[in-house]
């Protein structure tokens, strides 16, 4: 399968199975698009070219096809097997939140359950559980999530200290990450993050009016001023990875302005993602919005590409595909690993396939306090990888998105093997932009 597309004034070929990428002229692109159909070269778009030019371009394509880097066949894949290894954990350290964001999938942090913080006892057991299940994997990831993790900062610190105290003895390397709304972020916490957090994600949606419209405090006030003030202080002191991570909704379909605004504020690591909500929600993005959203990504990628040549260089999370050093095929087939190598733990110790299943009794896998863990669902999640998703197997973007989010598939399509199509087209557009930027920057 070959995917052709135009971006940033160039035409690209992506050989799906090999991952090869080429920049081509319009003649070559047209030849590829007609590769398996009879063509009268004296008519239509081909009539602009001489026979010599056409033969030359065909010969170049043939060379690549012979080499196996174009129009390559789907290889035999390794069989998906469940090995029981868990390497990443989302610790929902608090089911409480100081904000009431209108699009929150966690229902104000409580995940439709009791508002509570995780105790140190539960967190410690969760770390022990992760180590026990991690097999020979050395790198273990723990993401402090919520709710708002800073509402339970003492337990975050105790948990990190505990994991650090045993990681050498257990031959593990913990990578901690944290996602916070930044409202409670102070100097001492920033210093702690710099010492211990491999990555820090700060939730800010962009322009003040956009942010304040949906990210409000419990008393209904916009949270922008505090969040932004603290985020700027954080950025100045940050040592290590971070992201300013926002969500765009039906209210800001011109989200490229938010991305660029955040860059103008001084941030250089930015992620703004589409909201995922039922169609009936006032903030939901609808199928009819897709053309507008795709046009917005086109606007963004042009400005992004230009800014990266200047002192306003920045990194947009969804445009950062590296065509040279991407993940191996195994990773591309498995995807996020939810329910299999990645789990979430709720404040009461319940284990779920990922943070988006927290509180859903149908998806409870066990409990770290009780020492229970049923592998029936993890086996199901492990076996249902990209190769089981019929629609995805035919899609050119399959090795980049891996079949999409398992939780979205289950929650919005009722089947882990049915991709949530609302996000597919946006995903494909982002991947095209990412490949184009990376290709052009590397060819310079």
């Amino acid at each position: 399968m070959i995917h052709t597309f135009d971006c940033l004034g160039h035409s690209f070929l992506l050989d799906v199975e090999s991952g090869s990428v080429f920049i081509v002229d319009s003649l070559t692109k047209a030849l590829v698009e007609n590769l398996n159909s009879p063509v009268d070269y004296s008519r239509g778009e081909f009539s602009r070219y001489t026979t010599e030019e056409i033969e030359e371009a065909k010969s170049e394509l043939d060379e690549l096809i012979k080499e196996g880097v174009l129009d390559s066949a789907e290889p035999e894949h390794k069989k998906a097997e469940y090995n029981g290894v868990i390497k990443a954990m989302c610790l929902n350290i608090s089911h409480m939140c100081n904000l009431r964001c209108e699009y929150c999938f966690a229902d104000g942090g409580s995940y439709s359950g009791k508002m509570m913080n995780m105790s140190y006892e539960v967190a410690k057991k969760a770390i022990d559980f992760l180590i026990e299940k991690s097999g020979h994997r050395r790198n273990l990831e723990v993401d402090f999530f919520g709710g708002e993790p800073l509402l339970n900062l003492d337990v975050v610190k105790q948990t990190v200290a505990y994991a650090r105290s045993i990681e050498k003895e257990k031959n593990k390397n913990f990578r901690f990450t944290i996602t916070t709304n930044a409202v409670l972020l102070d100097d001492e916490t920033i210093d702690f993050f710099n010492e211990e957090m491999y990555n820090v994600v700060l939730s800010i949606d962009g322009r003040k009016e956009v942010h304040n419209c949906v990210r409000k405090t419990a008393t209904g006030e916009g949270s922008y001023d505090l969040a932004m003030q603290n985020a700027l202080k954080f950025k100045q002191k940050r040592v290590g990875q971070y992201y300013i991570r926002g969500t765009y909704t039906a209210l800001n379909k011109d989200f490229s302005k938010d991305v660029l605004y955040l860059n103008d504020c001084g941030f250089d690591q930015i992620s703004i993602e589409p909201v995922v909500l039922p169609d009936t929600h006032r903030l939901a993005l609808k199928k009819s919005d897709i053309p507008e959203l795709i046009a917005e990504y086109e606007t963004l990628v042009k400005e992004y590409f230009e800014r990266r040549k200047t002192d306003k260089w920045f990194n947009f999370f969804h445009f950062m595909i590296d065509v040279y050093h991407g993940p191996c095929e195994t990773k591309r087939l498995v995807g996020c690993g939810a329910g299999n190598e990645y789990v979430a733990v709720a404040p009461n110790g319940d284990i779920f396939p990922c943070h988006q299943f927290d509180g859903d009794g149908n998806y409870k896998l066990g409990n770290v306090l009780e020492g229970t863990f049923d592998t029936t669902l993890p086996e199901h999640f492990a076996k249902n990888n990209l190769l089981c998703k019929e629609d995805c197997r035919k899609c050119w973007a399959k090795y980049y998105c891996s079949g999409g989010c398992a939780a979205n598939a289950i929650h919005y399509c009722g089947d882990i093997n049915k991709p949530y199509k609302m996000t597919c087209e946006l995903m494909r557009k982002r991947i095209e932009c990412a490949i184009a930027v990376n290709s052009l920057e590397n060819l310079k």
Partner: protein
Amino acid sequence: MKHIKVVAKSTICRDKHTGCGECQSSCQSACKTSCTVGNQSCEQQKINRNEKVDER
């Protein structure tokens, strides 16, 4: 080649040493709703793509 510029060839690694699983889980990176694995990096060929590199 006159009509084609090669950007990258055969980038999806399938050799027997792959699948070590030491790389980051995509949901742990920045997103929690719309992950892609394509923008992750292989732990064995780790480079920091979050930083500007002038001398490409």
